[in-house]
Every structure is written in structure tokens, then in C-alpha cells.
């Protein structure tokens, strides 16, 4: 049997860390990188007598997500306690949502190999993160090898987003994860920092013979914190399961870990060892009630979603799939483009997209900064586009202006108005569009390049381009290229 006879079934659970000022049930900060336990207050330490108080910001983020994926936001959801002992779980239970989550259903569209697929979501629920156990290179009070607990992360708000088992390949799973990653950053609920653990996936993977309805036994691969690991882990796991079955074995339901160094998954615990979490409603917290007013209020502050923007821009301005995708890659890129759209006419939209996808993208890349930190702002690009449109500068000069402004802007912020015109003036970059002046330039070049003229007249088209190049060089790039082209043609053919 070959592996083409097997169908892969994948569901993802993604823990997204919500961008709030404080923890989900306490007032401690959630900023990354503080000294161990510097951001653990009595509630996070589970000191006797402390009680959780729900952070409304976290709830708003969950609602925001529900609205973005067209899900149902539950009017009433319940926080439950998930009981287990672990040193970095201070209360001995995690507060999570079990039977009634805050977000139910919803879909996310992905594109794989040019095909669009809808991924159904089961639910998204609010919960608190645990702390961290430090085992490596940790020493106790007397310098002895020891284990440490850092509770800074304990109580960090998480939204756990769960899909139905509807993905059929590692590529689909990665496409979904990337789309989700972009979305949660887009709507401003997660910083998306995968290295710091702000976005991490658990993949439930199973295989079944093609055509079989019943799911195979699944394995859950925990804590995949990069798209690369997600893909590698799934590919490995699928191969492992198929080989196991084809060799006459059976897949055991278990939790597995991915080892990126060995590029393999290995068993962490089997279902038989699975703990009984003794879930029950947390008596310290009231049911979470979400009113229509809260939903309406959040709806009114929702940014347009990337898919909506892409569709609009393609149909209204004729942008390519590529440009539309690039312009909606991040919220800040789209915001930049939207701001620019407000400053220019419809006929300049495509050139505008070209600048952002071209000059802008490579400059940002080179500098390693986000578009929101770009020294050149939409107002400057609008000025350049207008000067190209009215013939003051050529596209080539515009590129020079862009790089000069970029360098200057990095040193000190550019003023909003007049910078482009001032630079054209300063450097004398104004395009030469006076026919007499251009004719003079052409005559000079023709006189100095008789050989090329003869070659052209004898049928070598290439010589024409060489002459154009000479003319532009002599004009220091300022001659209007269209006019140069026309006048030169007239002269040579006369």
C-alpha cells in the first residue's frame, strides 16, 4: 500500500496570548521579559484569601475574535476549574471555560494551491496561562542544582481557539495557522510573537483509509510554536501513523511532543495516564454575561477585515491578487495604504500599490522595521505620485527621491508638506519637458554618436536604445522619457 491511500485528518487548538495590560484574573502586568516572579501578585501566587476578578479587556478581545470569524458570542458562559497538581500551577487548578465557552462556531477561509477552503471552528474559550518551571541551569539558595518556578506568566490571558477536524494536510494546517495568526494580530488581540509563546498550536492528527467515514485514533502534538515545526511535526506524525498501521500496528491515543532537533514526535503520556481534571464551575466567579450592547459596541470599533479589503481593492481598483495580499499582510500595511488612498485619485491607486509593494517593501525589509515606523509616510508618497502624474518628475527620479527622503527621514522626521517639491527644487530634479531643450540635447548626442546613428539606420534597433540611454545620461535623467523617445524617432526617421 502506498500513502496515497490514506487520508489525513487534522484539528488545531491554538493558544493565543491576549494583549491586555494586566492578567486575566489579577492586576499584575503581563509584559514579557521581567525578572522571575517580579510580575506575580498575591492572586497569581495563590496566597490564602485571594480571589480572581475577571479582566474585561480579555473578554472584549474574545468578543472581537468571535465577531471577526462570524461566530456566536455566547450571552452566558461559565468559568470552570481544571484541577491538577503542578509546581507552576499555583492554585492547583487552572481557571478555564469548559462546558460553556464564550465563542461558539465561526469559520476562517484559507487558500491552498489557489483553492479556497473554509475551516470550521468549534469554539474559542478564555483561560489563564500557567507559570514556568525552570529546570536547566537553575541553582538554589545555596548554589545547589535545583528547579525554579517563575510565575510571571501565571494568569496571562489566553484565548484557546479550537477547530473541527477538517484539515486534510499539513499544508492546510499551516495555511490555517498563518491565516489565524494574521487575523488575531489584525484585530489587535494578540501580538503574534511566536518566539515568546504568544501564539502556539497543538495539532490533533489522525489518518484513515481514503473513503472511510470513521476517524482514526488521534494523537495530540503539543506546543508547536512555529509554522515550520507545525508542518514538520504533522508530516512526521502522519508518516509515523501510516507506517505503524501498515506494519500491522495500531495507533495509541496519546499526547506527543515534537523534537525539532531530531525532527520527530515522541510520546509524552498515553490516554490511560490522562488525568481526571475534575472540572466544575468556579464558585469565585459569576457566569460571564455578554449583552448585545457590548457586542454592538465592539462591532463599532472593529477594523475592516483583510479578506474584505482584498475583495474591495481587487474589484474597485483592479489590484492583482499579489498586491492585494501584500497590502493586507499586516494591519499596519493596510492602514498605511488606506491612509494613502484618502490622499490620491483613483487613477493613482495602482502606482501607489506599486510603490508600497516595491520601494517601500524593500526599504522596510532592509531596515527591519514595520511600516508603522516608516520615515516616509502616506502624505509623502502622495506628493511623489502627483509629481509623477503632472510630469514634473519621472518614475526613475521618483525612486531617487524616495531613497533620499528615506535616508533623511531616518535621521529626523520629515515634515508633512512640501518635502517632495523642496527636494526636486534643491537637487534640480525637475523633468525637462521643453521640446526645444530636448531637441538641443538630442542634436548634441547625435553629433557625438554618428556610429550609432548609422547602425540604427542600417536596421539595428538596439542602437536606438543606446542613443536614448546617452540622452538621458546627458540630461542627468531629467529629460521627459516619452518626449525624448518621440523626438528622437522623428529626427532619425526624417
Amino acid at each position, binding site marked *: 500500500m502506498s500513502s496515497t491511500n490514506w487520508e489525513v485528518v487534522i484539528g488545531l487548538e491554538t493558544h493565543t496570548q491576549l494583549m491586555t495590560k494586566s492578567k486575566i484574573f489579577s492586576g499584575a502586568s503581563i509584559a514579557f521579559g521581567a525578572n522571575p516572579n517580579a510580575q506575580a501578585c498575591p492572586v497569581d501566587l495563590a496566597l*490564602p*484569601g*485571594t*480571589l480572581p476578578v475577571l479582566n474585561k479587556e480579555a473578554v472584549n478581545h474574545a468578543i472581537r475574535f468571535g465577531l471577526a470569524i462570524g461566530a456566536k458570542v455566547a450571552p452566558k458562559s461559565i468559568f470552570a476549574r481544571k484541577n491538577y497538581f503542578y509546581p507552576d500551577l*499555583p492554585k492547583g*487548578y487552572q481557571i478555564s471555560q469548559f462546558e460553556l465557552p464564550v465563542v461558539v462556531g465561526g469559520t476562517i477561509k484559507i487558500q491552498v494551491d489557489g483553492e479556497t477552503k473554509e475551516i470550521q471552528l468549534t469554539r474559542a474559550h478564555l483561560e489563564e496561562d500557567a507559570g514556568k518551571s525552570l529546570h536547566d541551569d537553575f541553582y538554589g539558595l545555596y548554589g545547589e542544582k535545583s528547579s525554579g*518556578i517563575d510565575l510571571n506568566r501565571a494568569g496571562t490571558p489566553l484565548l484557546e481557539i479550537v477547530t473541527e477536524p477538517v484539515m486534510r494536510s499539513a499544508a492546510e494546517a499551516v495555511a490555517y495557522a498563518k491565516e489565524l495568526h494574521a487575523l488575531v494580530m489584525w484585530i489587535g488581540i494578540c501580538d503574534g510573537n511566536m518566539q515568546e509563546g504568544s501564539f502556539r498550536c497543538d495539532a490533533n492528527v489522525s489518518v484513515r483509509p481514503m473513503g472511510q467515514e470513521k476517524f482514526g485514533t488521534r494523537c495530540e502534538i503539543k506546543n508547536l510554536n512555529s509554522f515550520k515545526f507545525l508542518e514538520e511535526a504533522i508530516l512526521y506524525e502522519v508518516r509515523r501513523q501510516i507506517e505503524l498501521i501498515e506494519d500491522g500496528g495500531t495507533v495509541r491515543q496519546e499526547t506527543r511532543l515534537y523534537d525539532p532537533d531530531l525532527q520527530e514526535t515522541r510520546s509524552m503520556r498515553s490516554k490511560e495516564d490522562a488525568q481526571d481534571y475534575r472540572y*466544575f464551575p468556579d*464558585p*469565585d466567579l459569576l457566569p460571564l454575561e455578554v449583552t448585545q450592547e457590548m457586542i454592538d459596541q465592539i462591532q463599532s470599533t472593529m477594523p475592516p477585515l483583510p479578506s474584505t479589503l482584498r475583495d474591495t481593492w481587487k474589484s474597485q481598483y483592479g489590484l492583482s491578487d499579489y498586491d492585494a495580499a501584500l497590502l493586507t499582510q499586516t494591519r499596519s500595511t493596510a492602514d498605511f495604504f488606506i491612509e494613502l488612498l484618502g490622499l490620491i485619485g483613483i487613477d493613482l491607486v495602482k502606482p501607489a500599490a506599486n510603490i508600497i509593494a516595491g520601494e517601500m517593501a524593500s526599504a522596510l525589509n532592509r531596515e527591519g522595521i514595520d511600516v508603522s515606523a516608516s520615515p516616509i509616510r502616506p502624505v509623502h508618497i502622495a506628493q511623489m505620485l502627483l509629481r509623477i502624474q503632472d510630469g514634473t518628475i519621472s518614475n526613475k527620479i521618483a525612486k531617487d527621491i524616495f531613497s533620499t527622503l528615506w535616508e533623511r527621514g531616518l535621521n529626523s522626521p520629515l515634515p508633512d508638506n512640501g518635502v517632495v517639491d523642496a527636494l526636486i527644487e534643491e537637487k534640480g530634479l525637475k523633468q525637462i519637458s521643453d521640446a526645444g531643450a530636448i531637441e538641443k540635447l538630442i542634436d548634441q548626442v547625435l553629433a557625438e554618436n554618428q556610429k550609432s546613428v548609422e547602425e540604427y539606420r542600417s536596421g539595428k534597433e538596439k542602437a536606438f536604445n543606446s542613443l536614448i540611454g546617452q540622452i538621458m545620461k546627458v540630461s542627468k535623467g531629467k529629460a521627459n522619457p516619452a518626449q525624448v523617445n518621440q523626438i528622437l524617432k522623428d529626427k532619425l526617421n526624417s
Partner: protein
Amino acid sequence: MKWHEKSLTELAKALQTKEVSSTELTHYFLKRIAEMKGLNAFLDVQEDLSLQEAKHADELISSGKAGFLTGIPIAHKDVFVTKSWKSTAASKMLENYISPFDARVVELLGQNGAGMVCLGKTNMDEFAMGSSNENSAFGPALNPWNSAFVSGGSSGGSAVAVAAGLTPIATGTDTGGSIRQPASFCGITGIKPTYGTISRYGMIAYASSLDQAGPMGKSAEDCALLLNLLSGQDPRDSTSLKAQEIDFTSLLGKTWVENADLPLKGLKIGIPEEYFAQGLDAKVRETVQNALKKFEELGATCISVSLPKTKLSIPVYYVLAPAEASSNLSRYDGVRYGYRAKEYKDLNQMYERTRSEGFGSEVKRRILIGSYVLSQGYYDAYYLQALKIRRIIAQDFQKSFETCDVLMGPVAPKVAWKIGEKSKDPVEMYLEDIYTLSPNLAGLPAMSIPCGQSQDGLPIGLQIIGNYFSEAKMLQIADHFQKNTNWHLQTPNLQSVEGAL
């Protein structure tokens, strides 16, 4: 002057008129505490700290910045965490634990609040689990009426401290009767208000959905004065309710209906027949019935009502409370604070030994029961079933309040028992809670007032159960009874106790 026999109002007037200073009062009560050390009412006393607070209170009084109860000493049940006194919940697990913050209750009454003077922390059953105070890791508080008998629990230390005149008033908590039953056993007045009236922040949790703090004092009036200071919403406790816009003393002395010739004319008292069924001690029955007659003399009418699920309150409570406790007590794992076993091989053994050695047997029993009823396969049969009956119990109360204003009956089937008498059979002890559990399950306010004594001179309490937010009326009713009887004025003969200690 016998300051320990004075009411809060009398003490407040004495302080205001400078007849006595807070420092003098504090010395007076600290001295009594030291003399009656044998009662084991207190787990931690720090005389210097109390006297510092008293000094501060005296300054407030001198500068005219004092509140009504400023300078009056108080004792806190050791379930409330304190910055300056140890907070042990009477457990070896927290033997030397000091909290970095004060409980809301302590904060409201203390230096930065009402200016009362903390005398120390009172004994209790470990983690508030028990009905006799015998579950304290530091030995039981003894009943001042007869030190061979239990004080009741879990707020036994507070009850003993008030009854023996070691403090003018004290705080307690009540999860299934822990204010009312020791109040009854020690002959004092205690009220557990509507669930959510007083913040649970800083109260070491036993069963969160049932735990409620309340005052324990010499009279309904004293309790009303303290309740005024304690009630109020706290943003740190999500289950605390919006403050009742009421002065709990406002109805004291007023007749039930205006211009009536009798103080309680028009009051309809419901008598739950289940509270007088088999199992009730004959003397307790007779005493409670005499008290009801007194209420009739004061103008009230008694009518019979039924609370058919009363018997089920025991299994329901002993499923739900342990379930919550099993989770609430998981934090005592030896990792961050509190007791940790001395020797262990690995993490699991550290947990096992820490919790085996740190918790007492009743606490462990309830953790086991709680873990069991929450386990997969048992959750529906026990926990969910208990929740359903809990709702029915609450509905039954509402049905009875359609025909009456308050309910009355005994607090407990018997008076205090001998120390050790029931400690071998936990179920027998659980059965003693039959009359007090239902109000907690329903979240209703309930109180205990002294109404007589047994042949052996042990106090008997009358229970008053009101509808939600009817504390002011309950206190009004209790106050009328106390203005017309003197059961609450009886004090134990401490000389005889001292001799026995």
C-alpha cells in the same frame, strides 16, 4: 469596672466621654485573655501590636476623628488573613504563615477603617471544617460554660472569646452553621448575612459558594453595629453584592407595624415542622418552644410551614462543600509557602507527604470526598444532583416566605457535647448540622440568639432565618426578644472553669 459586660454602645460612650481610653480597654481585655489562656480561644495574641492600635485609636478620639466603634477591641477568627498576626486557619499547613495583606473584613474594621483594635486571632476548626472546634491543629477552644464541653464550630474561638468576656465582639464565618452553632453552644448572638453581603477577600476559603462572614457578639444590637461596618461590595470579590442601602440598626426598637400596642404585632413566624422532628433533644425543643411563646406574647403569630428537603441538606452540603474545598485547598502544596515535608524523593512524594502531614484528618476526609464526587463518572450522580437539590431547597424557602416573615427553630438538635464524645464518628457529627445547613445552601441570612439553658447549664440557641436582605428586620425581631428577656445577659461562671482547666 466590668468592661467585658458592656455593650458596644456603652463602650463607645465611655470612650467618647473619656471615661476610659482605648489603651485601657485593650489592656483590660488582653489581661483577661492571658488569664483565660486555658480556654484556648486565641491562636495568636501580640499585645504590643494591639496596644499600638489602641494608641492610634486614642489619638483619633482625641482629635475628634473617631468613628462610633473606634477604640473598641475586637477579635478576628483566624480564617481572616492579617499582616500583623499569623493566619493559620488552625492548620499545621499554615502554622507560621503571615499574610502580606489584610482581609477586607480586617481592613474595614482596623486602623485604616473603623479604628477598632485587634486583640488577636481566634481558634477554629481547621480550615473552618467542623462543628466542635476539635479539628483545630492547636487543640480545641473550650466551652466557658463547662470546659469539658465543646465550644461548637467552626468559629468556636470567637464564640468562646465573646462568651468569656475576652473581647466585646468578634468576627466569624459560616459555611454550614459555623457562626450560629458555636454562638448557640456558648450563649451568644451571631448572624450570617445574605451570601455576598460581606467581602470574602482575605478569608481563607473553605467552600466558596457557601462561605459568608458575620459578627458574633453579646446582642443583636452589637451585631447590627458591626454589620454596618462589614457589609458592602468589594471589587476584589466578584461574588460580593452591591451594598444594601440600609442601616442595620435603623429598625431596632421600632414596632413591627407602626403604632402597634405590641412590638411584634403582625409578625408572622414560620415554624418548619422538619425542625422539630425526631432527633431533637426534648429540653432543646421545650426551650425553643418557650421562646416562641415569648414571641407570641410580644405580638407575633406562629404558623406551621414545611421545608421538606431539610433532611437532604446534609448529603447535599457534604457533597458540595467538600467538592469546592478539595479544589480550594489544592494550593497548599508545599511549593510556595506554608508547610513542606522535611524529606521526599521526588515531586509527587513532596506533595503526598506535605499534604498528609500538613492537613488534619477531617480536612483530608473532606478533600477525599470532594475529589471523589467531582471525578469522571461520579460528577453527574453526586455533584450535579446535589446542585439540583440545592436549587429546590432554595425554592422551598421562597415558598414558605410567601406565608411568613421569618422562620424560627432550633440551631442544633442538642446542646454542646463532651469533648471527644463524637470525634470518632464524623457522620454523627455531620448530622448535628441539620438545621443550619439549608440557609447556606440557599444563601439566606440566619442568626442565633440565646434562649435558654439545659439542665446542665449549657446554653441553647434559637435560630432565626430570614429572606434575602432582611437582616435589619431579623435584628429588629431579635432585639425585641432580647429587650424582653435576659438570656443574652447570662454569663458563665469562669471561676469554676478556671479551676477545671
